[in-house]
């Protein structure tokens, strides 16, 4: 039986790590992800896991050590946030291109400057092209579930890619919420043993990792990496289905909430989806045909499936909690791409919200739907791109 407990998002991720029992964890603390490694360090000290915990001097070193340990054949995990993720930048690409299934929680936090500890998605969105599978979560239960699925997906022989499991800083990481923690043995049975691939420590089969790769091979290696991302999508569908059968919580590539007959749809990522659902319930009671498409998997991005899900809706508001300076938001760009081939294109526009932890209240969400109603009634989008809840308009 699963245990129903009240626990913070960070606590839940530490529990997932304890259950996964990785061979190596290398980490450097940064708010708001620090508690994950603090809790995990306690599990190490108490002998509850067999993990070798490496306390390094920077996030760059943390990811470097993770890559080394993974290439040596271990199951490897870490956690970080914000500028810590930024400092890993070089090594994020190397982990992915060396096809090492490193597992990492990213507790989303705004990137400096100015320095800010609160939530937005600028950190993980900045890493979206690094080659990591990226999951996003509305609450601590989803973050935990994504992490339990992460090793099964990343270590699949058709995939062999690192997996980033993202959740909102403070809003999820530091809030206690009721959730279910599954039994250790059931989780371990679900995940299975780690299988090393071309391990450096397999001295009977010596290999070279990190060799020079010029114009004769680099593009072939990148092509193969892209293919692994394509294949990951169906592996994620399979693993999610198996997870649902085993633990009763069903996950698709994204979540559709009241989407079937919706005229006005909001597309969003992470915790704000909870607030949006609450508002949708209220508006639905008043007969408004509103819905939500919540992103779970951002890389690989399920273009065709999302286009299919948005078929029939009349207006789509894409809410980005990060900026791509000089461009539309990262999520908007993907949704826009997904809809390019759609037969009946809905009206589409982009709103940036919540940067640096700016709170979105339920009334703010209602305003979003009010605006989309106006646009739909007028048959055109007034402002393609705008910030919400910003002083000065």
């Amino acid at each position, binding site marked *: 039986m699963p245990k129903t407990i009240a626990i913070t998002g960070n606590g839940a991720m530490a529990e997932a790590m304890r259950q996964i029992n990785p061979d190596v964890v290398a980490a450097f603390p940064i708010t708001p992800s620090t508690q994950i490694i603090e809790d995990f360090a306690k599990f190490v000290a108490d002998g509850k896991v067999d993990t070798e915990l490496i306390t390094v001097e920077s996030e760059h070193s943390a990811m470097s050590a993770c890559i080394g340990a993974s290439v040596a054949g271990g199951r490897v995990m870490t956690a970080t946030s914000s500028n810590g993720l930024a400092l890993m930048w070089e090594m994020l690409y190397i982990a992915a291109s060396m096809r090492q299934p490193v597992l990492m929680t990213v507790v989303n936090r705004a990137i400096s400057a100015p320095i800010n500890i609160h939530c937005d998605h600028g950190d993980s969105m900045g890493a979206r092209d690094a080659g990591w599978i990226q999951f996003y979560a509305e609450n601590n239960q989803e973050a935990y579930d994504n992490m339990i699925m992460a090793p099964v997906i990343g270590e699949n022989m058709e995939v*062999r890619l690192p997996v980033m499991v993202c959740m909102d800083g403070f809003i999820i990481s530091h809030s206690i919420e009721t959730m279910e923690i599954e039994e250790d043995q059931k989780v371990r049975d679900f995940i299975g043993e780690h299988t090393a691939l071309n391990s450096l420590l397999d001295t009977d089969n010596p*290999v070279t*990792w990190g060799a020079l790769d010029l114009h004769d*091979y680099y593009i072939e*290696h990148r092509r*193969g990496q892209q*293919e*692994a991302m394509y294949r990951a999508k169906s592996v994620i569908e399979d693993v999610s289905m198996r997870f649902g059968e085993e633990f009763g919580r069903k996950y698709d590539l994204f979540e559709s909430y009241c989407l079937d007959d919706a005229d006005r749809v909001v597309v969003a990522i992470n915790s704000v989806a909870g607030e949006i659902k609450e508002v949708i319930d209220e508006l639905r009671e008043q007969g408004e045909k509103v819905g939500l498409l919540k992103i779970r998997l951002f890389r690989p991005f399920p273009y065709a499936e999302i286009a299919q899900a948005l078929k029939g809706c009349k207006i789509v508001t894409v809410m980005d909690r990060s900026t791509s300076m000089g461009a539309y938001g990262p999520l908007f760009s993907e949704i826009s791409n997904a809809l390019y081939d759609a037969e009946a294109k809905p009206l589409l526009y982009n709103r940036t919200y919540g940067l640096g932890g700016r709170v979105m209240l339920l009334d703010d969400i209602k305003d979003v739907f009010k605006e989309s109603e106006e646009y739909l009634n007028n048959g055109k989008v007034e402002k393609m791109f705008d910030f919400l809840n910003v002083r000065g308009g």
Partner: protein
Amino acid sequence: MKDKYRLKKWQELPPGGVITEGGNAADYETGTWRTWRPVWEEKNCIHCLTCWVFCPEGAFLLRDGKTPSGKDRKEIRKIDYFYCKGCGLCVRECPVNKKGAKEVIQFVREET
């Protein structure tokens, strides 16, 4: 070129740019880099193996032999031009060459 060195399609590559054959540097023909060729004169050689120690490509091949007093030793057999890249270290380090009276390793232009 052997089929082994045919440029592979992306589908044929193991993930992550890993090289799964150990010691495959032996297949690499560094001899193509050579513009000057060391030529070994067996009759002048004292088999001190200094050239063998210094050669960065392991191009000096050995054989079993005897010292003038009859003890077992390793002797130079030949230079393997598949590997010799013509760096000239052997020419410079040869102790017989250094004395100047005789030459064990001559350095000659590849261009004839």
